[in-house]
């Protein structure tokens, strides 16, 4: 005989998949929306950056100098794929300025200055077309070209004078090394360490928060669905323990949430990989950074983060189940689970702005018992070496979860699951029903 739990579980999965109330509003719409949002953002950024990096475009040139260097610069532009359209004066150039990158004015004396060893100036007229990312990025292109040209000339001059261009352009330079805990990583850009730090400190807590929200909402909804479908009374009389009933719902919510969370994860990962592929890649350095980071925060940090993450997940779930029992219909269940998710997300963000590294170890340990927020603390606690506080985070989140789930299971086991109500709407409907049968 198939177990009652399994029967219930299969029904839950089926109803989550079939019931448009759940499927559309909670899974498809958010996933499609975020997918679309990230997709558009990613595509746009990539597009904009590529466009900005790609040389070429139309430049309206007003040459008031007519000297050697003006000629030389114009040729330089042309050889770098820019289409140069010449105008005799600024006014006519402005009149014809439509889609071109900019108007470039070479003032009188440009060549003379350069020849005599003075700094020469170019004037740029740049049109603001709107706030599109692409148009802003392409605007900067011209500065890049001018910079390159300028470098080329200075290199030339310096070589002629027998000086090293590198030496002259920046006689003093720096290389950065990073200290995390007791480890020193030499010659590394700080931005390469912030990546893994963000993943541990923000990305994972956020994903856990998202999952917790998902599971809480699905479980609350699925309990409310039983009331709305007028199936709760029937279910309570089946040979199915109350515990299995709730466990089946929670398990189904968990699995569906994991799939949903996985979809989010894929979307986000894809987005970030697209963005980061734009910059220079240095896998070797980042793997060194990662292992040094692990050494600095301790191997217990990621482990405790996951442990505490699951505790937090169950805590959110327990609260959702408790609240769902007070609720009569799906709409109120979703509103009520919103009351859990919003503070959850908010507290994760608050945690980011709280600098606990400057606190004393006792203060840190005290603050580690605050549920939800403490997830964000684990990393910083690892950096300051406060393993006790980290353990407090993990234990406290499980302690809360167990207390709440215990209370929930006590209520589930009694008639309260049936009689508890937050909104007394139902009484009125049964009153009108009485009138009808009279």
């Amino acid at each position, binding site marked *: *005989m198939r177990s009652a739990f399994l029967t219930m579980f299969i029904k839950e999965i089926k109803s989550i998949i079939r019931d448009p109330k759940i499927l559309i509003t909670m899974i498809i719409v958010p996933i499609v929306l975020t997918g679309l949002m990230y997709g558009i953002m990613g595509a746009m950024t990539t597009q904009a950056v590529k466009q900005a990096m790609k040389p070429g475009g139309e430049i309206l040139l007003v040459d008031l100098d007519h000297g050697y260097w003006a000629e030389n610069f114009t040729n330089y532009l042309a050889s770098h794929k820019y289409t140069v359209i010449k105008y005799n004066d600024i006014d006519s150039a402005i009149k014809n300025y439509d889609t071109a990158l900019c108007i470039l004015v070479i003032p009188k004396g440009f060549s003379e200055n350069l020849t005599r060893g003075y700094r020469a100036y170019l004037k740029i007229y740049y049109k603001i077309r709107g706030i599109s990312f692409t148009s802003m990025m392409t605007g900067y292109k011209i500065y890049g070209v001018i910079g390159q040209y300028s470098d080329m000339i200075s290199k030339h001059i310096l070589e002629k004078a027998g000086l090293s261009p590198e030496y002259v352009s920046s006689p003093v330079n720096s290389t950065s090394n990073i200290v995390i805990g007791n480890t020193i990583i030499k010659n590394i850009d700080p931005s390469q360490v912030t990546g893994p730090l963000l993943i541990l400190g923000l990305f994972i807590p956020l994903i856990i928060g998202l999952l917790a929200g998902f599971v809480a909402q699905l479980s609350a909804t699925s309990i409310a669905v039983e009331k709305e*479908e007028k199936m709760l009374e029937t279910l309570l009389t089946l040979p199915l323990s109350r515990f299995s009933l709730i466990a089946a719902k929670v398990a189904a919510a968990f699995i569906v949430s994991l799939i949903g969370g996985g979809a989010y994860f894929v979307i986000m990962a894809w987005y970030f990989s697209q963005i980061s592929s734009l910059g220079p890649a240095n896998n070797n350095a980042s793997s060194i950074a990662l292992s040094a980071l692990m050494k600095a925060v301790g191997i217990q940090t990621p482990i405790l983060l996951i442990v505490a993450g699951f505790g937090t997940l169950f805590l959110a779930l327990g609260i959702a189940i408790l609240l769902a029992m007070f609720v009569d219909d799906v709409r109120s269940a979703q509103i009520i689970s919103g009351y859990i998710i919003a503070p959850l997300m908010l507290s994760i963000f608050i945690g980011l702005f709280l600098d606990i590294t400057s606190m004393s170890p006792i203060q840190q340990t005290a603050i580690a018992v605050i549920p939800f927020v403490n997830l964000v603390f684990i990393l910083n606690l690892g950096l300051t070496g406060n393993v006790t506080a980290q353990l407090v985070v993990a234990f406290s989140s499980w302690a809360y979860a167990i207390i709440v789930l215990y209370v929930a299971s006590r209520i589930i086991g009694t008639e309260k699951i049936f009689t508890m109500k937050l909104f007394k709407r139902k009484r009125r409907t049964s009153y009108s029903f009485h009138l009808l049968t*009279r």
Partner: protein
Amino acid sequence: MPTLVVEVNDLQKVYPGGKKALKGLSFTVREREIYGLIGPNGAGKTTTLRILATILEPTSGTARIYGYDVKSEPEKVRRLIAYLPEEAGAYKYLTGLEFLDFIASFYAEDEQAKRKMIQEAWKISGLGIRIKDKIKTYSKGMLRRLLIAKTLMIHPKLAILDEPTSGLDVINSTRIRRIIKKYAKEYGVTVLLSSHNMLEVEYLCDRVGIIHEGRVVAEGSPAELKKKYEAENLEDVFTKIVGGEEI
């Protein structure tokens, strides 16, 4: 002495709000009997049936089914009963067949037994090919027939039916009454039902308990009651006991 299927003794129920719904209710139901609980709105019929179905807990007094206490051994009780709530529904996004499969899975020992249950339920429901449609497309009468079928298909020792025909038209009501009478006998199911329809009670019930304000105020077969209260029909008996205002 015949086996007692239901044994309710001095049952009291106070709802969390403080409302006293049952004030010392007692009655018994014998094996293979169809027993009807009648009484005015708010008398405590549904409360009684919910306690027997292990949904609510009695405040005091005892309720036993085949000797099992509903409060201390609800799991044993649930294996013996099938309950049809007053305002029951079914999952709208399942088909009738899938719903029957879902319920049968809790009771059937194996696939074959399950198929047999579903087959019987299909026949009882009289839904024909509509059984393969989503429940949301069913009329009230079709839904009620499906629910009666799911209650009887598992051959429970005791079927608890709260107003099985409420809100149905004459044709559907008659159909459901016939189903109850036929299958209760065929499957040897003991039935405890509540009703506001005296015709239904006279047609179906071997014995009747009249509940008023949380107590059983009269009990007996329809014939006995009519004789005792010198009434032509059960409706007169009911009015005489409960007291209705003359117009």
